[in-house]
């Protein structure tokens, strides 16, 4: 295996001046420690097998993630759409901390909201139907799990309301859940820039538009893809059978420690129209 220079002693002369108790330099102890650690370190080399093991782990864990995603790319994106805004990565080829779905319980419909709220332990703002005709067809309580960089996990139970539009096979989902530790209004949108904002009952509401390119597992990124990925409003999701590009809209706001995300793919709605739906949800509490 190719050996590389390691940066030990690169600042040797500066170290004693940087922080020293003085005695170490006088009795030569600092030098002894440096020399010994360097010699012990130099005797250790990464075996070829280590890289193979890492490659296997990445392939295996990548397959696990893809397997989850392959249950339906759109479905996965829908279930993690909040993650897209919260973390900035939903189904990217490489991850960061990512949110995934955990347990889920379906209810008969909106009429079960109080029962669901009792079981989940808190209530959220929601409406059964909107003035534009979208109506709640399904409701569920869903667990959102955040897998952190250090391997730890945090989870929270939340709600999902699935609305269907009149005469159209278009669906809008409202996801609502309590904030996870560290999430707040300042970072909830990740690196994305909202394309529209609205103030409603003193709550700031953000509208985002994102282009989602779904690609097969063996897809190789083009130069254009690489360039697009630098944009904050562009995502690439791995796991579809063919290349497919879709636009999704998302409206996000936080109220009383609960984050709301109203979103949908290829919606026949303008930003103002979907913001209007968010307004109806927010104002439903005071009606």
């Amino acid at each position, binding site marked *: 295996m190719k050996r590389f220079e390691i940066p030990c002693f690169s600042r040797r002369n500066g170290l004693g001046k*940087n922080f020293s108790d003085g005695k170490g330099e006088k009795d030569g102890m600092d030098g002894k420690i440096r020399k010994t650690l360097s010699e012990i370190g130099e005797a*250790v080399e990464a075996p070829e097998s280590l890289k193979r093991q890492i490659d296997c782990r990445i392939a295996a864990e990548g397959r696990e993630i893809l397997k989850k995603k392959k249950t339906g790319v759109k479905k996965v994106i829908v279930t993690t759409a909040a993650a897209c805004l919260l973390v900035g990565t939903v189904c990217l080829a490489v991850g960061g901390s990512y949110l995934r779905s955990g347990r889920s319980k379906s209810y008969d419909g909106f009429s079960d909201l109080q029962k669901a709220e009792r079981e989940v332990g808190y209530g959220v703002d929601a409406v059964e139907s909107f003035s534009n005709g979208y109506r709640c067809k399904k409701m569920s309580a869903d667990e959102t799990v955040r897998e952190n960089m250090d391997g730890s996990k945090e989870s929270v139970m939340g709600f999902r309301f699935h609305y269907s539009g009149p005469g159209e096979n278009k669906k809008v989902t409202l996801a609502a859940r309590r904030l996870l530790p560290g999430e707040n209004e300042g970072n909830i949108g990740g690196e994305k820039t909202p394309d529209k904002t609205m103030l409603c009952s003193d709550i700031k509401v953000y509208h985002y538009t994102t282009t989602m390119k779904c690609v097969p597992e063996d897809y190789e990124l083009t130069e254009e893809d690489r360039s697009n*990925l630098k944009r904050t409003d562009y995502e690439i999701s791995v796991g579809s059978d063919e290349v497919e590009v879709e636009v999704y809209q998302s409206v996000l706001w936080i109220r009383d420690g609960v984050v709301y995300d109203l979103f949908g793919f290829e919606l026949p709605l303008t930003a103002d129209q979907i913001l209007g739906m968010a307004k109806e949800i927010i104002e439903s509490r005071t009606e």
Partner: protein
Amino acid sequence: MEEMELVQRLKEGDRDAFDALYEKYANILLRMAYLVCGSRADAEDIVQETFVKCWFHIGELKKPEGFRSWLYQILYRTAYRQCKKSWREIPDETVEMRADTSDGVTSLDRVMEKETAIQVKRAVERLDFRHRAVVVLYYYNGSSIRDIAHILNCTEGTVKSRLFAARKKLRGSLNNGKEGGAACETV
């Protein structure tokens, strides 16, 4: 290719960039992990975990120029958990024995012929994890106090305090030439 460019490409999912960064950092990380945990087998596990996390979590790294510190952070967090799990379970003799039967047997044996080196190694091994980590980063990596504080997620004052305490303990061990002394206390 510059490291910054490699990191940027890694963020875009470029496997070649990952391989190049592995080549650059594998030995550095393995050596750091070995010096901190004292076991070759554990060190390889720690490095493996570090690179797997690097691949899956590179999206969390905001600034490519902070890649090295970020990688070291992952390594030390992983090492800390690994050491908590296994360090106290491995007697000193076993650590020595494992090292002797590792791939680096020839070089290591040569090093161990030196009495001072043996004393220093044992003295460092007797330090608790936090002090060992500071000693390795400071003396082996040549990291500044500020960088160490960043990597270990503590204040510069804490780093100085740990380094001071570690030196004191090391000096005590080396001056006394105690080879079988008790493990140092945590400050």
